[in-house]
């Protein structure tokens, strides 16, 4: 079945004036003021926090400005059930950063690509670049661990495949949520010398390395894709509910229009950026 395009536009507009972009399903009539409702973690810099200091907060502002919508937030720690309790529960319209292969929702086109990185103190002069560096068998290595069933960050897998296990120290990705930005404890451990090197997701490492009390090196890991197929480089997109193609298409065009501005924003936050593939 296909609608005439002006009818489709009218329906899309009706959805807009009935409240959040998520809409409240099929009920007609006036609703809460128009807004773009973002589901985000209130305590997870550099991505987002409830003081609106993260780059995803800034990006939400940019999108809101372009679409002419005020931005509102639905806050929840990003843990198991995040998507189910936010986007899928129709409590918001968009998640600002997910891998572009994300299956629980519908991603937009990716707006940046980053990589896992080695992080170590400059004064250690380690010059580490590769998972195949033999020194990794002896250095004390910090990684994020998740603990969810059957799930671990790629560096853990890469180290385990090389039988680098006993000198690896896990830092809970959830951490102690009463502290600011719990995943940052991994970078703190490098600063304090609790570990010789951390292997962390680039945006997190880049941001906290810039704010560290001592100079840190942040070096993309190599290889980018380990055998048999274990990537360390990810394209990151926004995500909407599956089926919410109206919003997705609008977000895609916002991302397209502001590509350069978004790149500057990310660079300001210290996000290690790799070129996005040119397939689009």
């Amino acid at each position: 079945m296909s609608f005439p395009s002006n009818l489709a536009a009218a329906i899309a507009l009706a959805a807009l004036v009935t409240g959040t972009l998520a809409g409240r399903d099929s009920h007609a009539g006036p609703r809460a003021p128009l807004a773009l409702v973002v589901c985000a973690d209130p305590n997870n810099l550099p991505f987002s926090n409830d003081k609106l200091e993260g780059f995803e907060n800034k990006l939400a502002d940019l999108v809101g400005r372009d679409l002419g919508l005020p931005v509102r937030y639905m806050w929840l720690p990003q843990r198991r059930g995040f998507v189910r309790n936010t986007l899928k529960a129709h409590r918001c319209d968009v998640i600002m950063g997910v891998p572009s292969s994300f299956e629980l929702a519908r991603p937009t086109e990716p707006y940046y690509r980053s990589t896992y990185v080695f992080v170590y103190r400059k004064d250690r002069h380690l010059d580490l670049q590769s998972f195949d560096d033999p020194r990794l068998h002896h250095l004390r290595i910090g990684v994020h661990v998740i603990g969810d069933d059957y799930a671990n960050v790629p560096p853990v897998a890469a180290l385990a495949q090389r039988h680098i296990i006993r000198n690896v120290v896990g830092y809970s990705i959830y951490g102690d949520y009463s502290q600011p930005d719990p995943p940052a404890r991994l970078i703190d451990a490098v600063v304090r010398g609790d570990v010789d090197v951390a292997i962390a997701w680039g945006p997190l490492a880049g941001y906290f390395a810039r704010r560290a009390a001592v100079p840190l090196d942040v070096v993309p890991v190599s290889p980018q894709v380990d055998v048999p197929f274990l990537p360390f480089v990810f394209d990151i997109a926004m995500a909407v509910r599956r089926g919410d193609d109206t919003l997705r298409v609008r977000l895609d065009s916002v991302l397209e229009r502001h590509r350069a501005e978004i790149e500057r924003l990310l660079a300001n936050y210290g996000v290690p950026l790799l070129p996005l593939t040119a397939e689009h």
Partner: protein
Amino acid sequence: MSGQICSRAVLLLVALIPACKGNPPPARAATSPSSSPRSVPTSGAKPIMAPAGKEWTMPSGDYAMTRFSSLDQITPANAAQLKVASTFSTGVLHGHEGNPLVVNNTMYVVTPWPNILYAIDLTKPGGAVKWVYQPNPSDRAVGIACCDIVNRGATYANGRIFFNTLDAHTVAVDANSGKEIWKVQVGNMDIGETVTMAPLVVHNKVIIGNSGAELGVRGWIKALDAGNGKEVWRAYSTGPDRDVLIGPNFKPFYPDHRGTDLGTKTWSGEQWKLGGGTVWGWVSYDPDLNLIYYGTANPGVWNPDMRPGDNKWSLTIFARDPDNGEARWAYQMTPHDAWDYDGVNENILTNIQMNGRERKVLVHPDRNGFVYTLDRETGEVITAGKFVFTNWADSINRKTGRPAENPAYRSKQGMVTRGICPSATGGKDEPPSAFSPVTGWFYIPNTNDCMDYQGLEANYIAGTPYVGASVRMYAGPGGQRGGLNAWDAAAGKAVWHIDENFPVWSGVLATAGGVVFYGTMDGWFKAVDARDGHELWKFKVGSGIVGNPMTYTGPDGKQYVAVYSGIGGWMGAVAFPDVSTDDPYTGLGVAGAIPDIKQASTMGGMLYVFSF
């Protein structure tokens, strides 16, 4: 029941039912072999204490966790006449695990989060709410709990009701007035701890344990002073012996359980600090030996390759002194877990005559597909048999206590391992079995699912993209996804079994009347004959059953049977409208096993009470 089914049943089981009139026909009593209906099997197990009777004061009826009641008004001859006596809406949707208590003609109901406690006056017609206690747990707990927002119930002692709240508090409430006597924080949500288990009171101590092994928390069991909630002792499941409360009186049966600080040495580096082994299942107690028994959950940091070693004391049954917490023995069912086979299931205490000698045993149907009969004085494995299709291990070596693993089914990083049975939900999960001294058998609810451990699915958490493996589950051999087994623990094998379309995620009740009750995820509450499993009666409740049936005598002297209806929990959450079954990996893989549950059950939150 139609005459057609009746006549078919007569054809199939002509020996068991002489006529087919009032009573419904038997269910599939699939393998009812030589069991002569009226005789108690000679190898049958015997009770060690008086069972529940007119009242039901603790989670599983008695300290031995038998879920057996001495009430006998309901029998195979009259169960077909059971009718709904009353119903009560809890006002909460989501998974209703556990069961109500009945003390002094009052019924106590604890709901899933927000963990409301209702006292219902049974002397009033249809039952009337006497008071309501609301602990107001933090809504942050909802985002932290791994597997729905369940609560497994309360316990009663000395005029007080004790229960846990999802936001990791324990409360004591006056059973008469509903006034809060004390409320203490027992865990820290900031590091991922929640509490879902039902406490047990032993020697004026409230025994509790934490949940959250999925979030890398470190498991513990604690005793709180029932008088004021102050912590008396705490034993961790991982770490050095002083944290695990392992001292000179610790005498495990098997050599590889002996040694100093195995809670750190069987791990890589300091991974034991995030080592899981939470205590979210059931606690039982033997007053003669003065020992409590409980099991620990999966080890933390899921990737097994990152934690080489046995990962003690995850997936372990502990025997502890309830007064000071010290460990007396331990037995690890599944060393170096690669399947999520939590060891938290019930430990039912009975005595069994074996080789001319009475053994004090503990019977434990584990997630890993084996029913263990252990000597509860020593931790020795007496028998261990499979109760569902199981291929990750062939048998349990009684000399070493270790499983004879099948290496083809040990999951590995970066590989796809197909056809592992049982799946991560296990041959059964927490819903507790029952033991009937009438037959000497155990009645075990089960799940018949297998899984593919499939590497490299994109996932997402806390702004960190990662590649983990994920799990896809599907029905095991036979196609039925669950059922009920009658188990002979001395022989280590099933006597009969009933197939069910969906996993049986309800607990079981056995009565002196010779009736066994259980419920199904598609909402059938059933009574079957304890001797051969033939179906006596069933009733369709509003929402799937993941709670545990219990029984009591009302003020009118009649026997009542009560059960919660309200689908949810780990598997049951697939029925929720906001959980998609488009992706079979949803809910850690359970969606693939039961995508059709959405058609079979909607959410609910009701108590049903049945009688004549």
